[in-house]
C-alpha cells in the first residue's frame, strides 16, 4: 500500500514539474531488468524520468494502469480476458526462471526436477542429499499466484500438487534478499533479477538457462515480460515501448540473461 501511496505522491508532484515522469508499476520479475534499462532510455530522452517503483505484482500493475495511477504496467503474465478491456500488452522479453543456491553451497551445480519437487515437499532438507556440503538446506518459495511459481506449476511435473514446507516470500526483492544473504539457501527466480550477483545458478537436468536453450525450448522454465498500456500508448510511453525493441535495449536484456523479442 505504501508503494501505491508513493506512486500517488509522485503523480501529484508531476503536475507541478515540467520534467515528464514515466511510471511503470507492476511485477517484481522484470523490476531489475527495467531499472537497468531506464538510464539508457533517459539518456536518449532527456527530460523524461522513468520511475520503476518496487514490485506491486503483475495484478497490481494492471490495476494501477487501469486506474490511471501508472503510465505503464509491467507484467509477467499475459492479460486475462477479464483484464484485457482497453488494455494493450507488449511482450518484450522472455526470461528464464532459474534455480539458485547461496554461494556457500559447494559442489552442487545441477539439479533434477525430481529433486526440486523433493526439496519443496520437505523430503530433501540437507545439501548432502544433493552431494553438497553437510548442512541444512533452507528452501525459499514464492506465494501461490506468483508468475514464476505459476510457470513451475505448469511445467515442472509434480510441483503444482506438492505441499510446500519451504519458507514463503511474497515479493521478488525479498526473495532475492533472502537468497543472497542466507547461506545454504535455495530458491528460484527470474534470471535478470540476479544476473549480476554472485548467486549460484544451477542447471536443471543438465540444461542451463542460456539464451540458446531458452530459444530452442530445451530449457523449459521461462516467463514472458510484458508492458501494458491503457489504450494505445502515446508520447514517452510510446517511446519507451519502442525503446524496448531497440538494439541497445536488447543488448542490455541479453546481458541480464533475458531473451529480447521483436514487436
Amino acid at each position, binding site marked *: 500500500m505504501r508503494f501505491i501511496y508513493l506512486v500517488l505522491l509522485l503523480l501529484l508532484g508531476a503536475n507541478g514539474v515540467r520534467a515528464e515522469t514515466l511510471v511503470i508499476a507492476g511485477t517484481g520479475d522484470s523490476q531489475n531488468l527495467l531499472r537497468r534499462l531506464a538510464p539508457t532510455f533517459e539518456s536518449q530522452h532527456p527530460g523524461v524520468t522513468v520511475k520503476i517503483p518496487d514490485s506491486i505484482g503483475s495484478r497490481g500493475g494492471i490495476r494501477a494502469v487501469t486506474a490511471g495511477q501508472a503510465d505503464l504496467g509491467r507484467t509477467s503474465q499475459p492479460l486475462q480476458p477479464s483484464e484485457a478491456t482497453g488494455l494493450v500488452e507488449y511482450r518484450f522479453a522472455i526470461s528464464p526462471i532459474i534455480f539458485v543456491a547461496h554461494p556457500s553451497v559447494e559442489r552442487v551445480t545441477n539439479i533434477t526436477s525430481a529433486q526440486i519437487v523433493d526439496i519443496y515437499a520437505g523430503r530433501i532438507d540437507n545439501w548432502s542429499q544433493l552431494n553438497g556440503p553437510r548442512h*541444512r538446506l*533452507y528452501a525459499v518459495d514464492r506465494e501461490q499466484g506468483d508468475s514464476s511459481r505459476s510457470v513451475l506449476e505448469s511445467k515442472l511435473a509434480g510441483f503444482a500438487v506438492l505441499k510446500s514446507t519451504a519458507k514463503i516470500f511474497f515479493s521478488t526483492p525479498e526473495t532475492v534478499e533472502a537468497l543472497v544473504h*542466507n*547461506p*545454504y539457501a535455495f530458491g528460484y527466480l527470474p534470471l535478470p533479477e540476479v544476473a549480476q550477483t554472485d548467486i549460484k545458478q544451477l542447471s536443471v537436468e543438465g540444461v542451463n538457462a542460456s539464451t540458446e536453450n531458452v530459444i530452442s525450448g530445451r530449457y523449459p522454465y521461462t516467463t514472458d515480460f510484458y508492458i501494458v498500456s491503457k489504450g494505445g500508448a502515446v508520447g514517452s510511453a510510446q517511446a519507451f515501448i519502442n525503446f524496448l525493441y531497440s538494439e541497445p535495449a536488447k543488448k542490455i536484456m541479453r546481458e541480464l540473461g533475458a531473451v529480447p523479442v521483436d514487436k
Partner: protein
Amino acid sequence: MGDLRASTTTARDNGPARPRRKASITLRLVMMQGIIVLMVATIIGVASYRVMVSHFKVVQESETRAIANSVASLVGNDVKGMGEVVEQLAKGEAVAKYYRSFSPATLAQAFTVHNNLFPEITYANALGEEEVKLRQGDLSSDLRDIGRSESYNQAERTPNKVIISTAQISSVLGQPIITLSYRYHNYFDQFLGHIQASLPLSHFDQVIKEIELDNNVYVVLVNAEGEILHAPDARWLGKPFKTTDTDLALVGAAPATTTVLGRYRLLGSDTVVTRATVPNLGWSIFVAIPAATYFGPTKDLTHAMVVVGLIALLIGLVVAYLFAHSLAQPIKLLTRATSEISAQGSLTERVQWQSADELGELAHSFNQMLDQLARSQTDLLDARHEVEDILRSMADCLMVVHPDATIIKVNDATIRQLGYSEEALIGMPLDTLIADDKGLFRAVLASDLATDDRMSSIETTLITRDQRRIPVVFSRAPMVDSNGKKRGVVFVARDITDRKRAEEHLHYLANHDALTGLPNRLLFLDRLSQAMSRLPWHDRTVALLYLDLDRFKTINDTLGHDIGDLLLMGVAERLSKCVRDGDTVARLGGDEFVILLNDINKRSDVEVVAEKIIRSLSVPFELAGEEFVATTSIGISQYPEGGEDPHILLKNADTAMYRAKESGRNTFKLYAAAMNEKAMEALRMESAIRHGLDRHEFILHYQPQVSLESGRIIAVEALIRWQHPEEGLVPPFKFLPVAEETGLILPMGEQVLYMACRQAAQWLQAGRPLKVAVNIANRQFKHINLPQLVSKVLDETGLPPELLDLELTEGILMDQVDKAIKTLESLRQMGVSLSLDDFGTGYSSLSYLKKFALDTLKIDRSFVMDIPIDRDDVAITRAVVEMGRSLGLEVVAEGVENVEQLLFLKQLGCQSMQGFYFSKPVAAAEIEEMLRTGRAIDTSSGQLILM
C-alpha cells in the same frame, strides 16, 4: 400269655427314663432366630458397610483427583501462556529490529508491556551478554554475562523453545523466582536474540487461588527437580521437596495418571495426598486433604450402621419370641397329651388344636394315631384270642420251652396225649419226656438258641405218664422278642405212630420175597455183607449155595403159574428146613434160591448141606393133587476161594451152578477159578468185536459162484473176515460164536449187508452186474425186522434187489416156521432172492421146504467133500439136486475142490458151484480182475480157462 403281658410291663419299666427338660422349645427357637438375625444383620451390615465405604472412597478419590487435575491443568495452561509471551517477544518485530538496527528503545518498549508479569526481562546476544534489560519498569544498566547459566546453555542447545529454569532466589528482586527463556533462530537458523524473563514464585499463589479449595485443603507444586514452587507457607518455596518431613516415596518421576497416594504427613500435617502431573512440564501437583476431613464421613457411617444394626437385632428378637411362642404352643399341648397317655395308658385323650400349618396336621395326625392305636389294641386282643383258639384246637402237641429247657407253656393236645396235668408240665424239663438220648436233645436246644440255622425236624419218642411211647417228629421255631433275642423254642410234636408202622411194613416188603416170605436179594446181600464183615475175626468161613430148579420153566409153562408158585413155596419151606437157624435162605427171583451158610468149618460141611438139599427136594411135592419131583443144580462158592466180595462170591456161586447144570442136572459143583476163564475169554472177544465194529475192522471176501452151464461167474458169496490190527486176519469161527452169543451179530450183520450191497452196486456201476449172496444169522432173522433192514440198505446203496441173495440156514426157518414164511414172502416180494444154506444138515422136511419162498438150495460142503467116492453123500447130493429141480429151485454146490467133483456135479444136473477149485474167497479187487480177465470153466473138460 400272661407272661407276654408281664414282659411288656417289664419293657416299659426298663425303657429310657423320661428326659429332663433343660431348655424350652420357645427359648431354643428364640435363640436360633436370634442367631440367624444376628448373622444376617452382621453379614448385611458388613457387606453394605464395605460397599458404602468403598463407594465413599471412590467418590472422594475421584473428587480429590478432579481437584488435582484442575490445579494441574490450571498451572500447566498458565505456564504455557507465560512461555508464549516470552516466545512472542523473542520472535517479535522488536527483537528483529533490534537485531538489525540495535535500537534498544523499541525493545524496551516491548518489554515494558510485560512488566507486571515479569519484574525483569532481558535480551542477551549470541555470546550470552545481556544487551537490553528492563527491571521493574526501568532500563537497567546492570548488564551481566548470562552465557554460562544453565538456562542460557539449554536454550542454546534447543533454540526456539521455552526454557524454564530451576528455582532460585533473585538477590535483586529479593524473592524466589524461576526464569523463562527463549532463544530465537529464524528460518535460516540465524540467531536473532535470547529473551529471559524472571517469574516470582508468588505468581502461583494467584493461579492456585483461582480454584476455590475447601478449608484446610492445600496444594504443593513441585517441579521436575523436586523443588517446591508453591506451598501454603512461603517459607517452603524453592526448597527441595525431599528435605521436608514428607515421606520420600512421594518424590520421583511424575506418574502418568493422577493418583490418590494415601495418608502421609505432608509438610507437617496428617493428610491424604493426591498427586497429579502438570502437562508437558514434568511438574507435580500434590493436593493434600487433612485426614480428619477425608475420613470423617466414613466414621459417621460406621456409627450409624452400628446403631441401625442393634435396633434391627432387637426387633428381630422380639419377633422371634412371638413367632417361637406361637410355634411352641401346640407342641406343649401335644407334650401334655402324650404325658397323660403314657402316665394313664388311656387312649381316649385328644389334642385340642387346630391350625392350617404342619403343627395343625401334627395334632390331627396325633389324634388319628390315637384312634389307630385304640383300634390296634382291640385287634391285638382279638388276635390273641384267635391264637388261643387255634392252639386249643391243634391236634399236635405244642410246648414252649425256655432256654433252660423247662416247659413254660403247653396246649390242650399235649395235656391230653401225655396224660400230665398242665401244672405238672409247666416247669418240667422237656427232656424228661423224651425217650431218646437226653443229652443230644439238650444240645439241639442249645444249638437252636445259639444259631440262626434253619431248624430241621427231629424224630424222637415221647414217653407218656403211663409210660406209653409215642413216636413223634418235632418241628421247632424260635421265639424271638422284639429285640431279636431268642426267648425260647416252640416245639410242635406230631404223632407219627402210623407212619412208623407203614415204614416198617415197607421195609419188610423191600427185604422179603412176597411169595415165599424168604429174604430177597437185597436183604440177602445185606446179611452176606454183615457175615463177611465179621469174618476177619473168626477162623470160620461162609459159603453160598446157589441153586435153581431144573426144568422149572416147563412146569410153569405147562401147568401154569399157580402150580409154579406152589412149588416155589414148597421148595422154600424145605430149604429153610435144611439149614441152621443162623443161616439164611433167600429167593433171588424166579426159581433161583441162594443159601448163606455161616460159620462153616470145612468144605465137607457145605457138601453135606448140599446133598441134604438135593435129597430133601427129591421127595415129590404134592401140588394140586399131583406129585412133582423138583430136581436142582447147586453151585457152591466159599470164602475166600470163591471171592472176597459178596457180589463176586454170589456170581461165582452162580457160575458153579451153571457148571453143575452142564455136567448133568440134580447135582452140585464147587466153584473153581478155571470156570471163569472161558467166560473171560468170551468177554475179551466181545469187547474186541465191539471195537472192531466201531473201527470197521471187519471186511468182506467174496467167493465166486460159477455156472456149470456157461462156465462163467454168475454170483459171489460175501464172507466176513476180521482184519485185526494186531492179530491179523482172525478166522470167523473164533469170533462168530461170541458175536452170536452176545448179540453183536446184529450190528455186524447189518455192516456186512451194507458192505456187500455197496460193493455190488459199485460193480453194477462199473458195468459188471454180479449178484451178491449174504449170510443171515439166526438172531438177525429172529430179532429184527429183516425186510425193513434190507429195504433200507438197498435204498441207501442203490442196489437193485434182484442182485441181492440172502442165505438162510435150516435152523432159522425151522425155529419159528410161521414167522419165517411171512418174512420170506415179504423179502421175495421186494425182489430179493433167497437161498437155503447148508441144506441137508438139519431135519428139514420137504413139506416145509415147499412152504418157504426160496430160490436156491445150497448143498453143504460136507456132502460135496466126499463125492464121488462116498456113496451116501453121492446119494444125498443126487437127492438134493433132484428135489431142487422138482421144486423149481436152483441148486448150488459148495466146497468144490477138484475137477472130479465138478464134473460129477454137472453130470448130476447141479446148475452152479463154488469152491476152492475155482477160487477161494478173495478181495473185491480180485473178483474184478477175474471178471476182467474172463476167468471161467470149460464146461466140457471142467478145466479152468480164460474166456
